[in-house]
């Protein structure tokens, strides 16, 4: 559904006829006539205006008192004056009033030079102060959180940060305390304001009251340059502007406000994670293993070793591509593997193969929703993903849809989600039962309440209903909700919330396609897409949240064992990541880790440990000595951080975006595309070189549905390939039909689920500001199970399967359904991947 077309109305401002969209606030409408009205508190991103600062007072004909332009909607024939003496004196008075208690310590203040209060005082203030009395004093600066410092003297009480906390992040932590001139921003009981989005208040603050601890006093606006790029730390791929000083240091990350991607917000990982680019422990020179230890060597020597190792292994080489790789890097790496070494074993997924037919179906333009479609969706379904941890900015986008438009939200996850309180229906199921819960939803949507299947006439009508939806057969008659470990009422409620609500956007996590039943789970998802009519309505569709930041792009440029560039099926298919782990040392001799750390991120840690140990040669591209690299790599080539790369990435909704180089590469670091090209040249014997722009061209020419996309077209805002002519190049496939057979009975006992964590990532290890957020392993249990096992909250426990155990601290959560236990994936030690292997597993929990 397209947003409703805007109607324009005509009004008069400062003696000029101006037309502006109906319903827009005067502040915005005035801009159509090139009239600037000063504001502090007005920020459309924050929702309804509050009119707190009174800076925007204007005179409107027919209204005796001055009105706030930020909260007065423009009307046809309105006559507005912004330059009369009355308005001027009001503006002077407001500036004077705001400055009464403002300390005016601009030379010390970080905001100085980019401060709206400075600008407005200069532009609309009286220019002289009459105030000689002592000012109000607060203790300053105080830590609002380890990331944000607050200076209460500078605060002008504009409400922006409080509104952000209350209405955008919805963490309800920031409030105004006390009264009158002693009002101050704080948390309820002085606890630190810690949340995944807390850094945004620094950017929102129109004065220097909220400053970032990491950026504090590092530079002034005239010392720095902004450099636009994409944050590739998670699949949200927010548009950021990196603040660069002296061409070699990133000092700060600001949002670049792309409404099609991020809506102008950043999560704290993106906002403070830039510190990894200048971390002291970063690898800045090539290293080669010598007598058991990695030793820095020259590039020549390292490349010689790398070429020798890969040449010896030849087609017995495998490659893992990490999510931070750009499309160009992925493209070159799969070219190196397939065409030079002759090995199809390249994988960017963690949990097994993706069926080629399903991959093509999932890529269909009519089935893929854009992020902006969430703003117009009739209902939203979140399946098998915790957005705040896996793609935080989409979490805010879903919250916005619910808060502003009361969109029914259905959350179907096995682990209690932070979106639960906003949901119209919550569908909780057992970990690993994604397939069953999707089947239950389909069965409910097709057949109603399941009673129908019991009679012959009912079954006939079921077939009819299924056929109407274009399905060959309704889902098999089974107790789907029981297999999913979900309550039948929840399924009914969820289906009810989705049925007939207009265009539906389904956000699903790539994780549900992992493991041995992954293919069936995607089949059930596609059946659900059909049952919900996602392929018919404009503005409906699905968004997949990949596990790697550029998961979609890497898939489309061919970093899958069974799919080449452009999702073209490859015969014979190569080995998937879990198979590579098992085959290393047998049929595979060497492994390339391209910004990948399988010991930390991939399931079945023991298999990877064994595989890496048995691999004859491991070549790693890495920016840090991760566990996989430190223990097993034979040659380490320093990797670029996202601030140093040049290339493109693909957003989960198909938007190609440009990653631009912001700073010089530190030390000996070279462009990875250049290194890959050199490897290709050395190994193939044919000289091969290309500039970054040529590489992009090569990549877009090879992927059929990227064809014709140029860097200029992609530009600073990105371009969805579905919106271009090239989309027609995607091989047309019908929605694959898989008859939904009930999955096998789940294992008995406590079932293990993994909890992805925003903070269980290398950024919390290497970015100094984020270090305090690094999670310790904890096991989330229901109170019922804990009581049965005699475990109290905070106890040290062991979670074990088949003799392998993980130590964790018990965390009792009432929202966790009995029968489930959740461990954090990707922690530095005691990682949940020690226990996962892609199958649904029952675990033993005991006191340590």
């Amino acid at each position, binding site marked *: 559904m397209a947003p409703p077309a805007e109607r324009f109305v005509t009004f008069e401002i400062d003696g000029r006829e101006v037309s502006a969209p109906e319903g827009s606030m005067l502040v915005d409408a005035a801009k159509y006539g090139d009239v600037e009205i000063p504001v502090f508190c007005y920020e459309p991103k924050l929702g309804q205006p509050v009119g707190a600062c009174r800076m925007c007072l204007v005179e409107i004909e027919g209204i005796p008192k001055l009105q706030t332009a930020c909260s007065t909607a423009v009307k046809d024939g309105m006559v507005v004056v912004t330059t009369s003496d009355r308005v001027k004196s009001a503006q002077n008075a407001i500036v004077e009033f705001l400055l009464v208690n403002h300390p005016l*310590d*601009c030379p*010390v203040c970080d905001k100085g030079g980019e401060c709206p209060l400075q600008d407005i005082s200069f532009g609309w203030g009286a220019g002289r102060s009459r105030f000689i009395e002592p000012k109000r004093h607060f203790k300053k600066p105080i830590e609002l959180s380890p990331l944000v410092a607050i200076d209460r003297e500078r605060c002008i009480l504009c409400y922006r940060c409080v509104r952000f906390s209350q209405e955008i992040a919805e963490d309800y932590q920031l409030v105004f305390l006390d009264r009158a001139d002693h009002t101050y921003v704080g948390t309820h009981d002085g606890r630190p304001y810690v949340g995944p989005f807390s850094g945004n208040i620094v950017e929102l603050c129109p004065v220097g009251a909220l400053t970032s601890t990491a950026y504090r*006093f*590092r530079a*002034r606006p*005239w*010392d720095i340059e902004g450099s636009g790029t994409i944050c590739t730390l998670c699949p949200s791929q927010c548009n950021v502007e990196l603040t660069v000083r002296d061409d070699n240091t990133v000092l700060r990350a600001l949002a670049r406000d792309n409404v099609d991607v991020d809506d102008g917000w950043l999560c704290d990982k993106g906002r403070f994670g830039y510190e990894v680019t200048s971390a002291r422990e970063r690898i800045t020179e090539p290293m080669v293993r010598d007598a058991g230890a990695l030793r820095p060597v020259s590039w020549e020597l390292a490349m010689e070793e790398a070429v020798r190792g890969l040449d010896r292994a030849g087609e017995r080489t495998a490659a893992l591509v990490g999510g931070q790789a750009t499309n160009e890097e992925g493209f070159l790496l799969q070219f190196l593997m397939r065409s030079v070494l002759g090995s199809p074993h390249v994988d960017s997924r963690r949990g097994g193969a993706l069926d080629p037919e399903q991959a093509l179906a999932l890529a269909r333009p009519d089935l893929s929703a854009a992020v902006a479609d969430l703003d117009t969706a009739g209902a939203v379904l979140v399946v098998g993903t915790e957005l705040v941890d896996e793609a935080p900015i989409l979490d805010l986008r879903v919250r916005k849809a619910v808060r502003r438009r009361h969109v029914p939200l259905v959350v179907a996850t096995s682990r209690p989600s932070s979106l639960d309180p906003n949901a119209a229906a919550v569908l909780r199921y057992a970990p690993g039962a994604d397939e069953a819960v999707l089947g239950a939803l389909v069965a409910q949507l097709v057949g109603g309440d399941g009673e129908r299947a019991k009679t012959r006439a009912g079954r006939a009508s079921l077939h009819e209903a299924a056929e109407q939806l274009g399905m060959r057969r309704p889902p098999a008659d089974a107790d789907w909700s029981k297999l999913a470990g979900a309550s039948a009422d929840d399924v009914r409620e969820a289906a009810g919330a989705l049925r007939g609500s207009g265009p539906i956007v389904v956000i699903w996590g790539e994780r549900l396609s992992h493991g041995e039943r992954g293919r069936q789970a995607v089949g059930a998802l596609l059946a659900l897409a059909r049952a919900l009519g996602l392929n018919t309505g404009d503005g409906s569709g699905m968004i997949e949240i990949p596990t790697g930041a550029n998961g979609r792009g890497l898939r489309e440029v061919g970093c899958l064992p069974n799919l080449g560039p452009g999702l073209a099926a490859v015969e014979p298919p190569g080995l998937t990541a879990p198979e590579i782990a098992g085959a290393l040392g047998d049929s595979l001799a060497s492994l390339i880790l391209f910004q990948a750390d399988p010991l930390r991120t991939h399931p079945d840690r023991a298999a990877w440990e064994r595989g890496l140990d048995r691999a004859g040669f491991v070549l790693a591209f890495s920016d840090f000595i991760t566990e996989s690299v430190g223990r097993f790599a034979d040659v380490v080539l320093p990797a670029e951080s996202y601030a140093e790369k040049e290339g493109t990435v693909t957003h989960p909704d198909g938007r190609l975006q440009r990653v631009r180089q912001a700073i010089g590469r530190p030390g000996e670091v070279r462009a990875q595309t250049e290194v890959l090209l050199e490897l290709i040249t050395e190994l193939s014997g044919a000289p091969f070189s290309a500039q970054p722009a040529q590489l992009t061209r090569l990549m877009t020419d090879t992927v059929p549905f990227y064809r014709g996309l140029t860097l200029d077209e992609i530009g600073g805002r990105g371009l969805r390939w579905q919106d271009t002519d090239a989309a027609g190049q995607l091989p047309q496939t019908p929605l694959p039909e898989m008859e939904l057979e009930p999955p096998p009975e789940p294992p008995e006992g406590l079932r293990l689920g993994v909890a992805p964590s925003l903070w269980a990532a290398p950024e919390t290890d290497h970015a100094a500001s984020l270090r305090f957020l690094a999670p310790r392993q904890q096991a989330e249990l229901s109170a019922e199970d804990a009581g049965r096992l005699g475990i109290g909250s905070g106890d040290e426990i062991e979670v074990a399967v088949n003799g392998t155990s993980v130590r964790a601290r018990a965390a009792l959560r009432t929202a966790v359904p009995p029968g489930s236990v959740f461990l954090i994936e990707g922690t530095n030690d005691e990682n949940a991947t020690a226990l996962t292997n892609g199958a649904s597993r029952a675990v033993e929990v005991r006191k340590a």
Partner: protein
Amino acid sequence: MTWTPTQDVIEVQRGPDPGGLGGAYRAFGETLRGLKTVLGRLVEGPVTLEYPEDKTPVYPRFRGRHKLHRFEDTGLEKCVGCSLCAAACPAECIRVVAAENTPDNQVSAGERYAAVYEINMTRCIFCGYCEMACPFDAITMGNDYELADYTRSDLIFTKEMLLADPVERTPLRSEGE
């Protein structure tokens, strides 16, 4: 038309012939007149200075080598590292990197201080804008103009050099002189 050199010559003026009384006067009289001026200045004494032993005194508002200042009572630096001098500098020769004061390491009076303060004297054009921009009178232009050195890098003055009391080598012109 052929050109003959004599066509351009309009008139030739000549002096008097040498010899006679007039000739004698021109030889001696004019020489003596010049000598009178020379001998007259000799009595006045020299106007040049024996630089570098003697130096020209400068006016109080002369803009020479910069100085950074401390508070006399507390000894804290006046500079808070606000970088306004660097912003004002047309030659872009000032570099400031600020840092935060801590209770253990209180360097300046405000919250921040200049961890690095460098002036590249090879670039400085001594316009004095830095002094005008400074909100705390932390930087002023001194009187010293003897800044020559053997290497360029020695001409990047650090905060320590600028804070140290300069050897006052340049005499100041007294009031009304």
